[in-house]
């Protein structure tokens, strides 16, 4: 992190200029957020997954909270970071995060909390909705359908969406209220909360790197009769998730050296295709 001036710059980018508590969000505001959360994956992509749609969802609320344009920009930049969670539970995260935004926490505290809360909800939601609710509703619907009744389709649609929309709107309001109640507490302990959030957030990021980045080499070194499979014979013996870690750290180094995301993405794409053609990926 080097010199002091750098640190100051960092703090500037991290703290909001206007530190007064932001405008209250009305029921209508939260409802709007929940509606917009339907487009969480509108700009889904493998670099940042739901980042774009997430920002889209909370944007009206952010505009209301940050009347200072610089603050709004800071906030928006923060919210363009990688995110992946379950779409039905996302409003829970949104509600909490908006309460934090209102209390003008640091950008990094907010982002750490976001990652820490949202990431585990991904797996939880998948188990509850994609692997449980959906097969149940689908099974009932298919059963009726196979007896020739259109009621299968209708019943499926109603059952599933009653749960879906109840959760989406209910969680949004619940989480926001919860978050707002916590504002005084957070405000009184800003630094400590930030530190705690960072601990959880960064730990989760470390785990995400090992879990989400899928990179392994198919390289085999044929030396006469001997075939050395680089991945299983060497790297896996060294440590698991070695290449994902190395690649992420390289990307990180390049980001710090000023490479733009586009450049990194292009680099990655070219690498993927080239690696396939050259046969080492």
């Amino acid at each position, binding site marked *: *992190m080097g010199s002091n001036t750098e640190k100051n710059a960092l703090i500037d980018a991290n703290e909001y200029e206007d530190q007064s508590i932001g405008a209250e969000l009305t029921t209508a505001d939260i409802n709007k957020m929940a509606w917009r959360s339907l*487009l969480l994956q*509108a*700009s*889904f*992509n*493998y670099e*940042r997954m739901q*980042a*774009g749609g997430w920002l889209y969802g909370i*944007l009206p609320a952010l*505009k209301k909270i940050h009347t200072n344009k610089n603050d709004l920009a800071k906030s*928006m930049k923060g919210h363009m970071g*990688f995110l992946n969670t379950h779409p039905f539970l996302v409003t829970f995260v949104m509600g909490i995060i908006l309460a934090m935004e209102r209390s003008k926490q640091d950008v990094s505290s907010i*982002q750490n909390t976001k990652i820490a809360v949202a990431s585990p909800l991904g*797996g939880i939601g998948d188990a509850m909705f994609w692997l449980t609710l959906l097969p149940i509703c*689908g099974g009932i*619907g*298919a059963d*009726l*359908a196979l007896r*020739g*009744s259109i009621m*299968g*389709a209708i019943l*499926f*649609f109603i059952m*599933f969406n009653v749960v879906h929309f109840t959760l989406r709107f209910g969680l949004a309001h619940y989480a926001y209220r919860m978050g707002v109640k916590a504002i005084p507490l957070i405000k009184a302990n800003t630094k400590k*909360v930030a530190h*705690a959030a960072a*601990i959880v*957030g*960064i*730990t*989760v*990021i*470390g785990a*995400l*790197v*090992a*879990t989400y980045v*899928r*990179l392994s080499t198919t390289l085999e070194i044929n030396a006469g009769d001997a075939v050395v499979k680089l991945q299983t014979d060497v790297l896996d013996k060294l440590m698991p*998730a070695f290449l*994902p*870690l190395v690649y*992420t750290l390289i*990307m990180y180094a*390049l*980001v710090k050296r000023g490479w733009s*995301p*586009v450049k*990194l*993405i292009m680099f*990655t*794409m070219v690498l*993927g295709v080239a690696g*396939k*053609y050259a046969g080492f*990926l």
Partner: protein
Amino acid sequence: MEISIIQAFILGLLAFIAGLDLFNGLTHMHRPVVLGPLVGLVLGDLQTGILVGGTLELVWMGLAPLAGAQPPNVIIGTIVGATFAITTGVSAEVAVGIAVPFAVAVQMGITLLFSAMSPMMSKCDDFADDANTRGIELVNYFGLLVLGVFYFFCAFLPIYFGAEHAGAFVEALPKNLIDGLGVAGGIMPAVGFAILMKIMMKNIYIPYFILGFVAAAWLQLPILAIACAALAMALIDFMKKDETAATVKNEELDDGI
């Protein structure tokens, strides 16, 4: 039974809508049990649509996108399969056999698309820099449009031109290119994490990054377990600071002046 261009067009539109619903909206009208009857309606054979939809619902049971990974595409599978069953009168099971290659091709196509959409994120970064909220919105709408149009053609083309021609088109793409972009998609989150780390990482948090990585890589713990343990560490730290401060205070009181 022949399919008119209008019917093909309407089925394309249906794919457009269902395609969006698969990732956005998520009302799950895109599931076979609903989509089948809708195809039936368009082709004038609701009953077959219902039956094929029910059958396909069971085939695709438990297949949903987890952590962004695509299973064989349920929408194109259903639309192509149901159309085939209705037009040729074959059983739903046979229709599945026809539909699966298309479902797999579209699965690949979507994976590709999600890799290819990555550069749009930097556009968003620029908009964020300028607090340009409109720009962010447009990018999202644009994403929807691209996705929808892609689905439209994935449904329209095979239905209008017939399976063989469509199949030939799919085969024309170099496999290595497609696979390579798929591989790139798997690596891509590294870029996302790197950018995230730029915002959030400070030297004093490096140890926690290491611990998270060790727990996930070697102990193979799920994110939830790691988040729980991290929360515990954070709470310990949180409370210890109080103590330290308290200790200091006490010491000073004890020492008096």
